[in-house]
């Protein structure tokens, strides 16, 4: 079993961190994992994306060209990557950033107004974790306890205040149901 995940959005939305967090959760379940960022000028303000692979077998190419799961946090990423998602794959999009509709019926799409939810819940800057919460709930890529442990690994000790708010954001996203539609 191998899951190829592509996370994409603007620099500053926490895309690379979200990917790292996901990879750590996989690692804590003794799975093979890889994380590969797009690097270069993009990381200085433009779009950022990263490939994460969770697998039970050794991972070959770390580059995700046809994702099983796409998490898109801005329109350019959504437009660029949604057509590449594999049949029966998943798309998670931050619908507060753009009017998202990929027009595909062969994938499962979840539109979560993550940025709006974050603002409402006083969790500014954690739209990424809200969207990831939904992603994890739907795809069941990792067990909840691995997610908590991964948080311990990835949130540096000097930013402990982020620990609880991250968990809160994950839960908020996971429980978000309204506005969900298929296709």
């Amino acid at each position, binding site marked *: 079993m191998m899951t190829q995940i592509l996370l994409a959005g603007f620099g500053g939305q926490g895309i690379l961190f979200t990917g790292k967090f996901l990879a750590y959760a996989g690692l804590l379940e003794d799975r093979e994992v890889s*994380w590969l*960022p797009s690097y270069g000028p993009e990381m200085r303000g433009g779009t950022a994306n990263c490939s994460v692979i969770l697998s039970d077998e050794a991972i070959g190419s770390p580059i995700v060209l046809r994702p099983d799961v796409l998490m898109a946090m801005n329109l350019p990423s959504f437009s660029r990557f949604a057509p590449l998602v594999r049949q029966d794959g998943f798309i998670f999009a931050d619908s507060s950033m753009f009017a998202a509709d990929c027009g595909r019926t062969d994938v499962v799409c979840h539109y979560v107004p993550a940025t709006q939810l974050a603002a409402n819940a006083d969790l500014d800057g954690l739209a990424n974790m809200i969207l990831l919460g939904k992603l994890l709930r739907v795809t069941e890529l990792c067990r909840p306890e691995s997610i908590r442990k991964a948080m311990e690994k990835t949130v540096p000790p000097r930013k402990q205040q982020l620990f609880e708010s991250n968990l809160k954001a994950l839960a908020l996203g996971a429980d978000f149901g309204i506005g969900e539609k298929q296709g």
Partner: protein
Amino acid sequence: MAEKVLMKGNEAIAEAAIAVGCRHYFGYPITPQTEIAAYMAKRMPKIDGCFLQAESEIAAIHMVIGAAAAGKRAMTSSSSPGIALKSEGLSYLAGCDLPAVVVNIQRGGPGLGGIQPSQADYFQCTKGGGHGDYRMVVLAPSGVQEMYDYTAWAFEIADQYRVTSMIFSDGILGQMMEPVELRASRQETPQEGKPWALTGTRGQREPNIINSLFMQPEDLERMNLERFVRYAQIEAGETRWEEYLLEDAKIVVVAYGAAARIAKNAVQAARTQGKRVGLLRPITLWPFPKQPLERLAKRVRAFVCVEMSMGQMREDVELATRCQRPVYLCARTGGMVPAPEEILGKLEDASHGCCV
């Protein structure tokens, strides 16, 4: 087994160097290897080590020469255009028989090129890098664990044979994160194990002189021939490669580093289509694994080289196989990375015996 941590390839290199006792790092910023310098800058002051940002790539490699001459494990790292600048020092390291480790996290060229991953320094690095008659050991990891393990190995080779070993990698491997077991622990060869080191005579011995200048050609030839005896020992003792599904293979993919990972995916896909395809992954690019390729040439139908350069490695495969079998090329250049589908297409050509 130690706990695994998630690390970037660049960080794994730096951590391994520290784990095996390297306390002297000299570098200059260049994408996509800068994490190595950043990691060293953070760690070295805390372990009584030396991180120094040099004024140039050239100065950095000559600082390595100085620290190596003092008998210490020393390292520098860069990316393609920076390695070109270091080539003067690579030659002096060889001429002075000094052990050192140099890391090349390659990016596309020529010229300033780009910053995306590449393997286009193959000619430059596997053939020595600088001027003169010498060899440099070139190790090609294809994962973050190997970035770690081979860095430790590179220091051992360097010390054992008094040569420069290069970690020859690319932007993908430098930037990607994978789980790493931090398992290196072999410590630095103490200065006492390096009787040639410049430690001061203390009036107790004749001066040690480290020098690459020999005005008499007879002397220089003798020095070079002595060096080539060591190179032969390295070829005999250190050549490494990985074989994957080669037992019944009729077509052999040859690929190293990041390209080998993608090639492996393509080999797996070809196998599910019933094709008898395998992979030979050179781990040492110098010494190149000539013998297994020569053996394979006797029984397989064709070779397919997959590389992020325009057939630079293919020349070594053709030499190793004495051109007994066609050697196809699946190449991307300028920072582009081959997709598994492109490799499958080339495997199709090879199995139908299309013109190379």
